[in-house]
């Protein structure tokens, strides 16, 4: 692997940020002008939403299970095992539901977008689309961003619900807690700021997943090796950005709402 000079590294990083910003801005601007490719939006929503449902359900369920298990162990030192539901509910809705769901969807779909668009780029299909008078950002990028944001919102809700249910199953059948008490505490503990935080995050994360995936796909160079590299970079960058933005949103919303 050849070493890049610090100057070249800074220049390429700044250029990358510029190109990503321009791509994202154009993709969003396309929402306010026609034509809108609704068929492509629905196709992508099906692929991203329905296609990701199995892994989101599995991830949410077992995350809720292990949360209940681990938190009950710690809480029982203080004789507070009964509030396991509170911990599971808050953790799932505010953090683990949005973040883990997004990371799963990122691994599945950011890579898919990067590889699909990257393959189109290296085989000149993107150029062919431009030559045929179609804006590839309007046709390929905007539908992916819209559908990812929309689907991740609902996938997160499903993950939160399934996670809470998983926690309930462990609490009731393994820890011997009272079921109605668990669900009552899980429900009562959630306040408006908690739910708002948990639903604002997937909007940002969905945008990150789709825009990063499409960005690396559209700038792919170097044949099949370039496609592989773009796929890896899309997953890595989107995952890291999700974690960073999660912190920023959490800090902002806790600052505004106090919790």
């Amino acid at each position, binding site marked *: 692997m050849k070493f890049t000079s610090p100057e070249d590294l800074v220049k390429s990083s700044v250029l990358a940020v510029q190109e990503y910003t321009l791509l994202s801005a154009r993709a969003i601007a396309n929402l306010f002008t026609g034509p809108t490719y609704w068929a492509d939006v629905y196709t992508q929503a099906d692929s991203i939403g329905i296609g990701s449902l199995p892994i989101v359900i599995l991830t949410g369920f077992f995350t809720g299970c292990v949360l209940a298990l681990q938190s009950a162990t710690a809480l029982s030192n203080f004789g507070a095992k009964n509030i396991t539901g509170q911990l599971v509910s808050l953790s799932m809705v505010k953090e683990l539901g949005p973040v883990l769901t997004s990371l799963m969807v990122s691994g599945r779909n950011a890579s898919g977008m990067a590889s699909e668009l990257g393959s*189109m780029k290296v*085989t*000149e*299909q993107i*150029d*062919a*689309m*431009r*030559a*045929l*008078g*179609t*804006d590839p950002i309007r046709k390929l990028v905007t539908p992916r961003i819209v559908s990812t944001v929309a689907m991740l919102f609902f996938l997160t809700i499903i993950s939160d619900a399934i996670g809470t249910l998983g926690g309930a199953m462990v609490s009731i059948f393994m820890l011997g807690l009272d079921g109605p008490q668990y669900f009552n505490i899980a429900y009562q503990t959630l306040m408006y700021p908690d739910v708002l935080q948990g639903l604002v995050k997937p909007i940002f994360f969905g945008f990150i997943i789709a825009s990063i995936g499409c960005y690396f796909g559209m700038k792919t160079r170097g044949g099949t090796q370039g496609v592989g590299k773009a796929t890896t970079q899309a997953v890595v960058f989107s995952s890291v950005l999700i974690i960073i933005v999660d912190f920023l949103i959490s800090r902002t919303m806790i600052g505004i709402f106090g919790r």
Partner: protein
Amino acid sequence: MPDSTAIAEQSASQPQQAGPVVVFDHVSIAFEENQVLNDISFSVEPGETRIVLGPAGCGKSVLMKLANGLIRPDAGSIHVFGEDVTKMREEDLYPLRERVGMVFQESALFDSMTVHDNVAFRMMEEGLPEQEVDQRVLESLRFVELEDAVNKFPSELSGGMRRRVAIARAVVSQPELILYDSPTGGLDPITSTTIIELVMKQRDVSHTTSLVVTHRLQDAFTLATHEYDVQAHAMKPIPNKGIDAKTKFLVLNEGKIVFDGTTQELVHSNDPWLKEFLS
């Protein structure tokens, strides 16, 4: 009149461009530190077929993409149908590209779409009625003799068939200018002849202005010395060892034009590099 020429004949009735169709004026472009094209100037007149020759890596494909505004030069201007494509925004280029058909080096078919949807792409984007789209797609596929492949995917086709579908996609909208980027690249000699025959058919029946990039000298000279016989559905040598008057050559080497002229001038050139290249 045979159905396969219907699409070509419709093109023949289009109003012709007054003045050159394509004008490159002192165009230069470099990629990183590699000067690909250096101060290129030439023009293509209406109805002319300009064959672009040159060794591999001399900038032929780059020249094609510049002509269609897919990339922008570092210096100079490019006028297509009288409009400066180097100064136009991407969204302003789309209406201009409706008048240009392009055949890419590796066909560049959309591999997730059928042959029908590939050929119909532009018309579907324009929202034309389905019946009209289907009719024009079939006419275009008849032109390249691939009517039976209408519902196949590109992965199910051979290289030559994919190239023919790419030509069908380029001509279906009856463009006034066609850009062929190495239409026979990577194909065997027999399939290459089939492709050149289609290029010739488009040239002779619809008189479309075209730019043909090729690295195969035999294809270039076949185009210059043969004509398409509509009755026989095949190409034949021009009588009396004639040369097509509307076919001219542009030879590039190391980013510069080393020859710009007629077939006769090329064949009789005394330039030592040209003589070696053509031998």
